[in-house]
């Protein structure tokens, strides 16, 4: 991390933590996570043996719904606000590279995104304590699950960042990123409907829900890792192109 990136990142995280939206999100996330988790436990109590608590937790509707809604709200203000208030001019007339500015925003929001998942870890910890089972929450599936949460988050956040650089209107930015993320997420389901095996394989490649299912079962696959990382880089580069283009236009 370069010096400029570190200074920008600190300010970015500070900016997020000083906004009321951050604390509202954290509260709502904890509430929904808690609710979702207790439902998972209630489901297991019926004598279900074929899934672990983690598999259910990361597969459940709440989790994904939350992720798709959460990211646009987190990212909508990142650039839009700077363009709207004009602080982007102040930022870009300091001796910093465009890339550092983009990366600091991305890493800043990624940091907060990861913070938001801490309450869910607490849920698992409580489950562990209360059930007194030897290894109800295994480390490897746990690690893989959160790796997947991070990877998916990185791609979605970079999409959100890209949407935010397109407009100075936060609501528009949120709507654009929501649309892109939802399209990406739900197109995975088409693999159930498509008959052509080539297409089916291609759609499976971006089928986040299935990938999560195998990761939370402790099965690692390198293909999704490549997909999410390259997707993230792609959208970060796209963000940079738009930023340069906006200045050309004035």
């Amino acid at each position, binding site marked *: 991390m370069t010096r*400029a990136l570190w200074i920008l990142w600190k300010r970015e995280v500070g900016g997020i933590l000083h906004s009321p939206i951050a604390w509202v999100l954290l509260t709502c996330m904890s509430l929904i996570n808690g609710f979702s988790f207790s439902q998972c436990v209630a489901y297991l109590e019926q004598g279900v043996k074929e899934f672990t608590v983690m598999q259910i937790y990361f597969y459940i509707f709440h989790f994904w719904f939350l992720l798709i809604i959460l990211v646009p709200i987190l990212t909508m203000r990142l650039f839009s606000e700077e363009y709207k208030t004009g602080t982007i001019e102040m930022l870009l*007339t300091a001796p910093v590279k465009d890339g550092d500015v983009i990366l600091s925003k991305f890493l800043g929001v990624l940091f907060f995104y990861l913070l938001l998942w801490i309450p869910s870890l607490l849920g698992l910890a409580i489950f562990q304590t209360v059930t007194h089972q030897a290894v109800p929450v295994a480390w490897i599936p746990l690690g893989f699950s959160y790796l997947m949460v991070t990877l998916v988050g990185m791609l979605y956040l970079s999409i959100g960042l890209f949407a935010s650089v397109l407009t100075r209107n936060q609501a528009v930015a949120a709507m654009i990123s929501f649309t892109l993320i939802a399209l990406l997420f739900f197109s995975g389901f088409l693999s159930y409907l498509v008959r052509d095996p080539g297409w089916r394989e291609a759609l499976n490649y971006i089928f986040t829900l299935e990938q999560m299912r195998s990761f939370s079962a402790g099965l690692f696959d390198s293909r999704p890792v490549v997909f999410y990382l390259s997707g993230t880089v792609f959208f970060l580069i796209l963000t940079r192109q738009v930023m340069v283009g906006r200045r050309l236009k*004035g």
Partner: protein
Amino acid sequence: MIQVENLTKRYAGGEAVRGISFSVEKGEVVGFLGPNGAGKSTTMRMLTGYLPPTDGQIEVAGAKLPQDSLLVRQRIGYMPENVPLYPEMRVEEFLEYRGRLKRVTRGEISHRVGLALDQCGLSDVRKKIIGSLSKGYRQRVGLADALVHNPRLLILDEPTAGLDPHQIRSFRELIKELGKDRTILLSTHILSEVEMVCGRAIIINKGKIEASDTLANLEKRVQAGALQIEVKADPAVAKEKLSKISEVSLVTELNRAGEWISFEVTAAPGKDIRGEVDGLIKREQWPLREFRREKARLEDVFVELTQD
């Protein structure tokens, strides 16, 4: 400090800046003057590396744009129009952030921030949240931001816009003070500001430079002021004799009070007719009770140069 040649900025909608050339020497305080929408901000944004020019060469603080953009940005202090700031930050915290971003070292930062706070009269509000400050203070924070890394060149875009008369006055004093050991380019559409702070003015209109000169020379370019005299003399004779002075372009009778008649005597552009008029009055032995020169004001220059 600033060398601009043939600078052009074209947008999809048209040309904001049309091939302008000018330079600012080290130690000068130069006013960048023009009506709203003349291209002042666009030019300044190009000088600070924020906007890439469509065409032309820019050299600022010994580095070329856009190649050495980072170097230029490190060497100048820029205060954008409307002073955008992060409202949730505290004054001191903001200046520390900006100073660090502009490569002030960790060891020097508190000294530099303290100095900028002092210079801009912000010491009392250093712990306050920027969003809660008045416009005047926010403007000062913007200036402190431009100063915090101790740049030799300041580029200020309408630094006094939106301030009340008291604030404007103290702001000008501050700029004057800063101009003693720095080069300053400041834009404004308030003329008295230029008259008070700047040694030279560049007048820009519709993306083109109309004039670039010292204030004294600029004033000479339009009617170099008119003389108002009030004498006791025969109106027709006096008018004729005054008109005969070679450098007088116009004599207007203003009014009469008993035997006293007052005239406005206008000189040809750039000429000083005080000596000749005085000589005439003495030769004719006209009793005189008023002899006053209306100084040409920058406002006249401005209006003449920027009207359609």
